[in-house]
């Protein structure tokens, strides 16, 4: 499945490329490398906002109802009179933090950046299948981010029903003020986001299938491409279902239908809704919601696999098993959504089925973890910041993943469902792990994006403080969750039963504040290095993959001459039949060289 024909046409186009203006180069660019940077910067800005929100509500949890001037400055007199955070804005912060981190940072920021940057570069294509659609995809994402941020400023406050926006709470402004205009904007923003995500995903799928260079068979693809490809497929399958849920919710909210609502008495009156069910919404939401966590984590896994192999100077262990496990995870991810609903009132028999499918996911996940560890074994580890974040990712993925065995088991879920135990679990396994994957990717491919190097010492500081703080924040949460403390409580001072947990909350918040503050080191390193970083050489990490055969200075079309041909798999590191400890994919096989793979 080579793409020679296409290359030819593209070469032709390339020669006659017209002059780019500032607007076509930096703003409405159709070059995948520029779009990747746009995704990354937007993702970073959203990340700063999302993390800052979490610090605010962590302060409220550690020192409930204390007055902080910063609350008043940031939240205003309405939501933080005298610097004391109000209970409804607490819920709004929790909701928007979740939405921003899951969708805008870890879906668009992570997948959008690296799929765009790496798919054409690593498969040997001049650009995405449709550069124009790619541009539209970014600008729809940008628009949805702007709308989401605008919703913070509406009078009654932004959406506050939790990032899962379960109706009726999200449908009725009488139930919570944020379910008025704030919720409308949330839904509009997400609908646009989904359109953006679908365009991106379709583009990735088509590009990977059609535009691989000569010799780049599916089984020679780097694992990054495999994960982006599979992620895009899951996205195409599941995001439309969320869109349908959002549309039906809009209908219920604005046009009086009863898809999700029934028999409601609120604020002294009976509403007209009849026959709908919130459980239906939960099914639709989690049909996306669960695959979504794999949409977040799979690209991180791909990045980590690639970075680990490169920096271990070793082939990734069990390349085929890694692909199989990604496919298995992707398949299973679409049939486990019910484990979020064990106690939703659905038939307990369904609970049994979902327990079974959910716990099966542990098998491919275990294969991945063991393969990563074996990749390190007897390696020649180059402990670059990207490598540290990759090792950190495997660590948090294991720690967080293991507690999934508890939450995925319906019997055990009864008592820990919706407690801080859940928060600890998913922040480690998908939040922190995906964030580490993203950081690893940024440290590794920064030279490819900006032609300059990030400062490694700042990278080391960034990693170690983050690593300690991440465990410092989420490890203690397991304990307060097992003590029965529900999540999304503005304060637990109304329950003397939980008084002994307060010290732990203070410790968690302290770690969170320190960890949050040290992200400034990263921000500084990132933005300062764009302009002042050390100039990068063409292949700084001595990597085998195709992106490092392109010139440091970006050109439209990626390669100045012909697109290189691929002769071997992506992981020929320390091949004993070669002098160098890496053999780029473009190097032809020596006569008589043994083919380990393909």
């Amino acid at each position: 499945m080579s793409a020679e024909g296409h290359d030819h046409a593209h070469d032709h186009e390339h020669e006659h490329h017209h002059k780019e203006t500032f607007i076509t180069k930096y703003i409405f660019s159709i070059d995948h490398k520029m779009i990747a940077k746009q995704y990354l910067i937007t993702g970073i800005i959203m990340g700063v906002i999302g993390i800052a929100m979490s610090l605010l509500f962590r302060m409220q949890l550690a020192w409930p109802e204390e007055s902080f001037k910063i609350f008043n400055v940031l939240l205003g007199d309405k939501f933080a009179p005298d610097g004391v955070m109000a209970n409804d804005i607490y819920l709004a912060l929790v909701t928007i933090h979740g939405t921003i981190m899951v969708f805008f940072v870890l879906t668009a920021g992570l997948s959008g950046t690296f799929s765009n940057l790496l798919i054409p570069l690593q498969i040997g294509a001049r650009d995405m299948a449709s550069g124009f659609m790619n541009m539209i995809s970014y600008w729809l994402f940008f628009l949805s981010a702007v709308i989401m941020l605008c919703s913070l400023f509406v009078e009654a406050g932004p959406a506050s029903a939790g990032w899962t926006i379960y109706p009726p709470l999200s449908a009725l402004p009488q139930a919570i003020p944020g379910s008025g205009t704030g919720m409308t904007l949330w839904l509009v923003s997400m609908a646009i986001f989904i359109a953006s995500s679908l365009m991106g995903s379709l583009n990735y799928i088509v590009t990977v299938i059609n535009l691989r260079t000569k010799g780049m068979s599916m089984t020679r693809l780097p694992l990054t491409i495999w994960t982006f490809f599979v992620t895009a497929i899951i996205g195409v399958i599941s995001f439309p279902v969320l869109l349908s849920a959002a549309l039906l919710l809009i209908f219920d909210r604005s046009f009086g239908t009863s898809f999700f609502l029934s028999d409601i008495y609120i604020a002294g009156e009976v509403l007209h809704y009849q026959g709908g069910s919130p459980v239906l919404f939960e099914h639709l939401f989690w049909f996306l919601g669960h695959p979504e966590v794999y949409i977040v984590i799979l690209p991180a896994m791909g990045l980590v696999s690639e970075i680990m192999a490169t920096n271990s100077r070793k082939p990734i262990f069990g390349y085929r098993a890694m692909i199989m496990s990604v496919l298995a995870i992707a398949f299973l991810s679409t049939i486990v959504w019910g484990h979020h609903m064990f106690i939703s009132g659905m038939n307990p028999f369904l609970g049994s089925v979902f327990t079974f499918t959910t716990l099966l996911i542990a098998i491919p996940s275990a294969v991945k973890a063991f393969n990563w560890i074996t990749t390190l074994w007897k390696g020649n580890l180059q402990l670059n910041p990207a490598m540290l974040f990759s090792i950190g990712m495997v660590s948090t993925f294991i720690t967080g993943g293991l507690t999934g065995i508890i939450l995925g088991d319906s019997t055990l879920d009864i008592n820990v469902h919706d407690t801080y135990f859940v928060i600890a679990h998913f922040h480690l396994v998908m939040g922190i792990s995906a964030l580490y994957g993203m950081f690893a990717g940024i440290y590794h491919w920064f030279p490819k994006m900006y032609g300059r190097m990030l400062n490694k010492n700042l990278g080391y500081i960034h990693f170690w403080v983050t690593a300690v703080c991440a465990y410092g924040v989420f490890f203690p949460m397991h304990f307060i969750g097992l003590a029965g403390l529900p999540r999304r409580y503005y304060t637990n001072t109304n329950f003397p039963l939980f008084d002994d947990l307060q010290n732990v909350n203070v410790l968690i918040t302290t770690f969170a504040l320190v960890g949050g503050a040290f992200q400034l080191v990263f921000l500084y390193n990132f933005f300062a290095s764009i302009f002042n970083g050390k100039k990068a050489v063409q292949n700084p990490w001595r990597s085998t993959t195709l992106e490092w055969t392109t010139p440091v200075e970006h050109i439209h079309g990626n390669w100045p001459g012909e697109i290189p041909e691929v002769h071997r798999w992506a992981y020929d590191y320390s091949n004993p039949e070669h002098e160098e400890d890496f053999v780029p994919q473009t190097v032809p096989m020596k006569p008589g060289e043994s083919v380990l793979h393909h």
Partner: protein
Amino acid sequence: MTSLLVIIVLVLLAVALWQLTKIFDLTQVGSSSDSSQVANDKDNNIQGYLMFGFLAFLYIFTIYGLLAWGDMPLHTPASAHGGQVDNLMNITWVLIFIVQAITQVLLYYFAFKYKGKKDQKALYFADNNKLEALWSIIPAVVLAGLILYGLYAWTNIMFVDEDEDTIVVEVYAQQFKWTARIAGEDNVLGKANVRYIEGVNTLGVDLSDKNAEDDIVVSELHIPKGKKIHFKFRSQDVLHSAYFPHFRAQMNCVPGMVTEFAFTPIYTTSEYRELPYMVEKVAHINELRAKKSVELIAKGESGLDPYTFDYLLLCNKICGASHYNMQMKIVVDTPEDYKKWLADQTTLVAQVKASLEKPAEETPGEAKENDTVAAPEVAMK
């Protein structure tokens, strides 16, 4: 002024970082001609040791956590099925700790042991079917065991036998309070729908239904020890979740639908208070509260009351601004005390009659109604 100071501090911090990196860069000049920002042997060495140090941190932190906070998690289940849940939980924990201990050691130890050196070549080791089969099959077998035990327990807990001798109790959720309705002598709840809500009848019980005649509505639920309680849950407005942590029981309350859960309490409230772990926990909490009271009184506020343990029903599904304060006390009595308590309660039908007869006097029911109306104000705060 403060904001100006903060800005100055931030700017200075940025400058300091800038200088620091310059210094780092300068120190590298002489060393190995390498300012490439790619890890060199020295970096590998330092980072390798830090990896090992981090492993130590993980272990110490885990042990510290277990020692310092190990008594926080819920202990001794107060329901008959709770033992099964906790047993499965403990088995799972043992497995998790074993896997966690082994994998983290391998991960960080390898990161330390195989830290890179110049002129060293890694082992070209790309595949081993036996190893991969091994770590697919072992998790599969272990999980099969967990799944089977889990499903056995789940089926036992969740499927309520209709013929069983139970007490039927409705738990009714609304923003931001719980109410309970006991089915009475016939042990059948009267029909209900929000469209019947009127005055004292805040649960919307169909008063014309024969089964509703002996229904009793209470705001503090008593249940007898040793008898299976069959809970039926309703909500009048948004999703709530009825969470009984000590009984290892939880079920969502869904508007327009009745959900169920059944459990048998095995300790009365006073028995549970006497459990050594609970005595210790309450003493600890009261110590903390006493300390806090001193602070509060010094500030001129009123102190905190000492705490005595009670079973609670909490809301565990985000339901609005005052979600964090939606609770109901549950008292587990001996069967005799329960009978006495039940005899003292008036039926809903009697309450409604009474409220119609003397509308001027404030009945408990009307007080409830006021609460409901006041709730949005609480929410606005």
